């Protein structure tokens, strides 16, 4: 149990630049320990905006290595850099291998903070607590936050709401490279990176991306054309150009994408949805009823069962009761 004063101590320590408090706060908020929403309210009030860069791309395309290089370079240029590295939670076991630290070994010496997070069942490529973690990092004082995330699939687009600039990585030799970087992120990324460019096929990938962009840029978020760059992240080749491209775009649209109207609406809707589900299942005892029923019968009609558990009109009745009690 975390009591009120303990939250307060952590929040004060966070504002004082205490890195242990930062770390602990992220854990508590991620675990949704009671009191977390009030704590985030404090964090939200205390934070200054940070620039957020999302780095996404298929597994093995060098995201981690590139993220590490970008972080180091900006850190050397005087920015306070935090990294959130997200890996998928196994849908079968609920566990995860968070292996991004392997590729970012030099960070400690330069004060860069790296936090690994598992998606924990969230489907959009980020975890539920990613946005919270970005804000906690910003409240601590990080002014550039890199989010390295799984995949670049059609559905893994949550990073769009959170990042101001999006990098997508691709590598040669992944068969039909257009498939590897298809719709979704592809349509609105700002910088495309062909990594492992020392391998054959790098130019083909770049050409494919250019061709794809000519067709699909109707929905582009950024003004102006997307940038396509080639790198060999392990040696650092091409990385200075990536930094330059980022610096240019950060100057043009520095921060605040999380506060776009649509993103704010989506975030509040998500939070309410999560709370509604949790409340419903916790308060109704319906899960036990469901299990009993499914266990007792060999063939279950899901339509009948779900309307028994959540009868049509329940919500309307509940809201009417609440309004009546509040005298509206």
């Amino acid at each position, binding site marked *: *149990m*975390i009591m009120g004063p*303990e939250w307060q101590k952590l929040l004060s320590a966070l504002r004082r630049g205490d*890195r*242990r408090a930062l*770390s*602990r706060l*992220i*854990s*508590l908020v991620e*675990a*949704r*320990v009671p009191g977390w929403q009030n704590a985030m309210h404090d964090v939200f009030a205390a934070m200054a905006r940070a620039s957020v860069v999302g780095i996404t791309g298929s597994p093995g395309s060098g995201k981690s290595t590139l993220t590490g290089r970008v972080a180091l370079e900006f850190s050397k240029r005087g920015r306070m850099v935090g990294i959130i590295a997200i890996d998928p*939670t*196994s849908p*079968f*076991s*609920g*566990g*995860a*291998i*968070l*292996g991004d*630290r*392997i590729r970012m*070994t030099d960070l*400690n010496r330069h004060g860069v*903070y*790296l*936090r*690994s997070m*598992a998606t*924990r069942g969230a489907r959009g490529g980020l975890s539920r607590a990613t946005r919270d973690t970005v804000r906690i990092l910003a409240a601590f004082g990080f002014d550039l936050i890199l989010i390295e995330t799984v995949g670049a699939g059609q559905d893994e687009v949550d990073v769009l709401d959170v990042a101001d600039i999006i990098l997508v990585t691709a590598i040669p030799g992944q068969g039909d490279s257009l498939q590897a970087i298809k719709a979704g992120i592809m349509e609105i990324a700002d910088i495309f990176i062909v990594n492992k460019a020392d391998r054959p096929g790098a130019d083909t990938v770049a050409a494919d991306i250019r061709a794809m962009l000519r067709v699909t840029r109707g929905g582009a978020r950024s003004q102006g054309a997307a940038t396509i760059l080639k790198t060999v992240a392990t040696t650092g080749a091409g990385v200075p150009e990536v930094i330059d491209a980022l610096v240019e775009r950060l100057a043009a649209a520095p921060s605040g994408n999380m506060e776009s109207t649509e993103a704010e609406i989506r975030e509040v809707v998500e939070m309410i949805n999560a709370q509604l589900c949790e409340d419903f299942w916790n308060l109704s005892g319906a899960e036990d009823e469901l299990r009993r029923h499914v266990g007792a019968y060999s063939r279950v009609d899901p339509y009948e069962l779900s309307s028994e558990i959540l009868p049509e009109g329940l919500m309307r009745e509940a809201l009417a009761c609440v309004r009546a009690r509040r005298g509206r």
Partner: protein
Amino acid sequence: MTKGRILVAMFGTDQHELGAVAVAGLLRDNGFEVVYLGRFQTPQTIVQSALDEDVDIIGISCHSWEFLDYVPELMALLAEHRVDAPVVLGGSVITTEDAQAMMVHGVTSVFGSASRSETILETISALATQRRARVGVG
């Protein structure tokens, strides 16, 4: 929610990574989040990672003898930084005498070459649950 965040690493130039990879997979398959640091770690990098990732357990895989030198250093550094996470060691080269010596330095559990998956999981589960309760996360 997770059962626990477990750091897995190897010291110095110990190249034998299969054990660490196997245990990481075992933990993942049983609901744990494994912060996998891999090879070439030092007490300094482990302590920094343990703090930044707020891990519940620090697991070191030992398949060559440098752990005998590194572990005391690690334990001292963890104490200095007041890191609240138990340390467990696992590996094929750890003798009973080594295990006892390491526990004198403050290591909580040691899994030698005869250790069974069930034992490892039980111990890790118990330690993670206790630590999470202590710091208020779970």
